[in-house]
Each structure stands twice: as structure tokens, then as C-alpha cells.
């Protein structure tokens, strides 16, 4: 019998071949705890496969550090496929690194060159306190979502599908906003630590749809007011849009601004209500 299939052993050998490898130097922010003094530590990372994701590279470095008896680097990660919003990191001064439209987990070592020094810092904002090393707490985002990220529905039996007509373009725009994974890159990249892109996306994905209309202006006002308890103000640099792994447009910020002014005008009209 003629053998047409490739030898499975060869295929395995091809997969385990590390291919091109890089030697990189890492400058990593190390901080033992929330109130501890932090510093940059330098680690050599030779023989890194260019096919590794950035987080896999950190895994390898951590294995080596553990073998040497050094405390591994703490960093946030979860799904590693760009949909959970857990990974963060300022890589060479850019949130999620130099690649556009990707989270750190989707950044691959082939983006870097042999001999590069890579500086890794945690996201920095007063509302994102450092827990340890590169891990930050982004609970402030939960406060904003709690303030208005819900809709009012009849919670009886399941409604028929497509009961509420939504124009395709509106559904698409709402989906673009709903793509936000709440990673915090917008805040990290913003020179003012503003969370306007996050808040605008969270407000828009409900405000654009018919299901979100009943609370539209209340939502916009409470979410913006909560946001301003934690974060800075928008000066329209556009850094957030450039850093966003989901490439959410700052157009949503303009929409939020418009809705906020309307909210301030409309929300005062609750007749017979004082305060």
C-alpha cells in the first residue's frame, strides 16, 4: 500500500520545532503589595519562540524564576483569546503593547526583534490600585456598570424572538459598543486617566437599542457621574481608541456627551419630586 499521508511522527516533530527564537531583556515592575515600594527588575529571557504569545513568554520566564527560587511575576490573565478583558500591561509605554486591536494575550513575540529590551509596567490610575507586581484592581469599572448597565424588561415567560424590530445598522453600532471587554486599556493609555471610552461604550450598547430606551437618560447621568468619582476628564487625545483591543470608536464618547446634556435637561423634569 502506497503511503500518502505524512508520517505523524514528522508532523509532531514539526510542531515542537521552536522555529525562530528571540533573546529579549525584560524590565518588569515588581511591587510586593498594594502599599509596598515598587521598582523595575531586569530579567534576561533567552530562547523565546517567536510563536509564543506575550503571556506565554511571561509563563516561561516565571518557570525559570521559580526554578531559581525567585518569586514569579504576578500578572492578570484568563481566557488568553482576547475576549475576557483580564490581561492588561503597559508594554513599552503602550497599553496591550504595540499591536493595534489586540489584547496582550493576542500580542505575539514575533512583533519584537532579537535583543529588544521590553519594559512592562502595570496600568496606572488612582482608581486602579496595584495589588501586586503587574496586577491592578479594576473594580471601579464595576461601580460604573452597577450605576446603569442594566435594562428594564418583563421578566415573565421568554419573549418571542425578534419581537422588537431593530434596524440592522443600529444593531451593528450597538454591537460595536458591546464589544468592550472592560480591560481598562482606555484608562491606562489616556494621559488624563479618563474612562470616557469605557463608559460611553457601556452606555451606548444599551442606549442605542429599543430595549434600553426607558432608562436612557437616567443611565447616562448616573454612569457618567459615577465615572467622574473615579477617573479624569476627556480632552479628546484619541489615545483610548488607539489602545482599545476592540477598536471601539471615540464617536461613542460624543454620543455620550450629547446624551448627558439631554439627561441634565430631561432629568430635572420629574414633576412633584423634590431632590
Amino acid at each position: 500500500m502506497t503511503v500518502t499521508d505524512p508520517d505523524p511522527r514528522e508532523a509532531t516533530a514539526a510542531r515542537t520545532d521552536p522555529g525562530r527564537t528571540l533573546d529579549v531583556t525584560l524590565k518588569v515592575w515588581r511591587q510586593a503589595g498594594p502599599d509596598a515600594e515598587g521598582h523595575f527588575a531586569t530579567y534576561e529571557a533567552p530562547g523565546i519562540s517567536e510563536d509564543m504569545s506575550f503571556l506565554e513568554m511571561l509563563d516561561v520566564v516565571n518557570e525559570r524564576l521559580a526554578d531559581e527560587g525567585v518569586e514569579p511575576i504576578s500578572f492578570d490573565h484568563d481566557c488568553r483569546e482576547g475576549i475576557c478583558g483580564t490581561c492588561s500591561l503597559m508594554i513599552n509605554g503602550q497599553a496591550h503593547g504595540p499591536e493595534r486591536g489586540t489584547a496582550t494575550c493576542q500580542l505575539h513575540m514575533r512583533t519584537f526583534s532579537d535583543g529588544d529590551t521590553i519594559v512592562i509596567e502595570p496600568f496606572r490610575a488612582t482608581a486602579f490600585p496595584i495589588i501586586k507586581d503587574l496586577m491592578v484592581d479594576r473594580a471601579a469599572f464595576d461601580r460604573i456598570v452597577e450605576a446603569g448597565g442594566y435594562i428594564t424588561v418583563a421578566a415573565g415567560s421568554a419573549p418571542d424572538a425578534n419581537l422588537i424590530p431593530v434596524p440592522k445598522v443600529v444593531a451593528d453600532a450597538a454591537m460595536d459598543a458591546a464589544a468592550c471587554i472592560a480591560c481598562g486599556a482606555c484608562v491606562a493609555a489616556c494621559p488624563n486617566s479618563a474612562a470616557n471610552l469605557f463608559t460611553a461604550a457601556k452606555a451606548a450598547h444599551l442606549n442605542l437599542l429599543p430595549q434600553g430606551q426607558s432608562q436612557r437618560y437616567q443611565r447616562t447621568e448616573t454612569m457618567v457621574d459615577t465615572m467622574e468619582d473615579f477617573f479624569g476628564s476627556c480632552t479628546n487625545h484619541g489615545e483610548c481608541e488607539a489602545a482599545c483591543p476592540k477598536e471601539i470608536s471615540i464617536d461613542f464618547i460624543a454620543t455620550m456627551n450629547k446624551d448627558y446634556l439631554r439627561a441634565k435637561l430631561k432629568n430635572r423634569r420629574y414633576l412633584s419630586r423634590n431632590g
Partner: protein
Amino acid sequence: MTATSTRDVGGPTGGEGADQASALNDRYGAPIKRKQRRPAPWPVELYRSGLGKKYVMAITGIALMGFVFAHMVGNLKMFLGPASFNEYGEFLRELLVPILPHHVALWLMRIGLIVAFVLHIHASYALTRMNRQARTVRYQSRQDYAAATYASRTMRWSGVIVGLFLVWHLFDLSWTGTGAPFYRGDPYTNTDNSLSRIPVAVLYIVANLALGLHLFHGSWSLFQSMGWNNPRFNRWRRNFAWTFAAIIVIGNVSFPIAVLAGVVDV
């Protein structure tokens, strides 16, 4: 204020059970600035918010852009000679005169400008403070900007330069003069006398370049702050911004150059 006062609470390993959970809640997710304030009329409520201040920045910015444009166009009369230029200055004082007494229309416009300036400066000061509070520990490595322009990152400084220049400019050509012979009521001669001094001409040019930078970002940014965002005209916003900034800079810089070149000469 709670976030700073609870920073001594034990960390994730510090407490036990519910205590630990509440300590975590105190430390994480507590607002960094929440002030209890009495309810106020809605324009005041709006101004208290950051977004409201941005509206004020944009609206006063539009008013000041209108002034800067009219000021530049009016000063082009300089090229038509002393009679034309001084007549224009007199016209401003006599604006709407049969309806209003002398100088009143001019003073109303001046009051509007002063209010716009004060609000623009106060809002920017308050927003800057808000931004500083939002990142008390700065990045320890260099941030690599991907979208922010030189103009957008230097708004604060271009604004301060323009503000200081404005004070100088008022002393120079409106109030007292700044060393060169100054004749009240003869702006053409005063302009020529003042701008014939090379350091002063350079100062005017530098200040107007700063103004140009400020306008380049501001006259785009105002569309976002006002919520004027529509796919139908979005591509014109940047074009408008640089065209407007260029027109103002070219117009204003032409005056010191014209004086130095002898085109404007008594």
C-alpha cells in the same frame, strides 16, 4: 476620600472572613472623590460635572474663536492704510450707536469676552486638577503615544502662553504702551511703533504660533465635547480645525512681518 484613609487596612491576607471582604471593598472600588453638595439649579449642576465643564470649554471656545477671527479680519484693514484702520477702530466704539449710547455695544462684547475667558480658564483649571487626581502615581517608564498630537498634549502650555501674551498685548496696544511712543486713539501709529521693535515682533509671532497650536486641537476637540459627531460631516472636522488655525496664524503673523517689511509704515 475613603480610598486614601483605608490604605492602612490589611491586604488580601490581613483579615478574616467578612472582615477581609469588607477590607477589600474599602480598599478597592471606593471612589477617589465624591463630595456631597447641595442640589443647585441645573446649569450649576451641569458645570459641577466634568462633562459639563467640557461643554463650557467648547462653548466659550467657540465664542473666543469668533472673537479671534473677527479681530484678525478687522486688523487686515491695516493694509488699507492709517485712515481706514483708525476709522475701523472708531467704528467699533460707535457700534449700534443710534440704538445704544456710545461704547455700550463694545463694552457688552468685552464683558462677554471676559466671561468667556474666565470660564474657559476656570474649567480648564478644574479639569486639570481632576486629571491629576486620577493618576497620582505616574508611569515610571516613557509613555509611547499612538494618537495624541503635539497640539493636544500641550493645550495647557499653549493656553498659558496665549493668556500671558493677551495681557501683554492689552498693555502694549490698548492701555499704556510698552515703551514705544504711544498715542491714545491712533492704533495705526501705535502698531507700527511697537512692532518695529524686532523682539516684540518675534514675541507676536511666537504667541500666534502657540495660538495656532491651541486652535488646531481646540477647534477639532469642541465637536467631540459638544457631541457633534455624525458620519456625514466627521471627515470635515479635522479639515476645519487646521484650516481655521492656519487662517488665524497667517493673518495675525502677517502684521508684524508687514511692519518689519515696511508695508505698514507711518
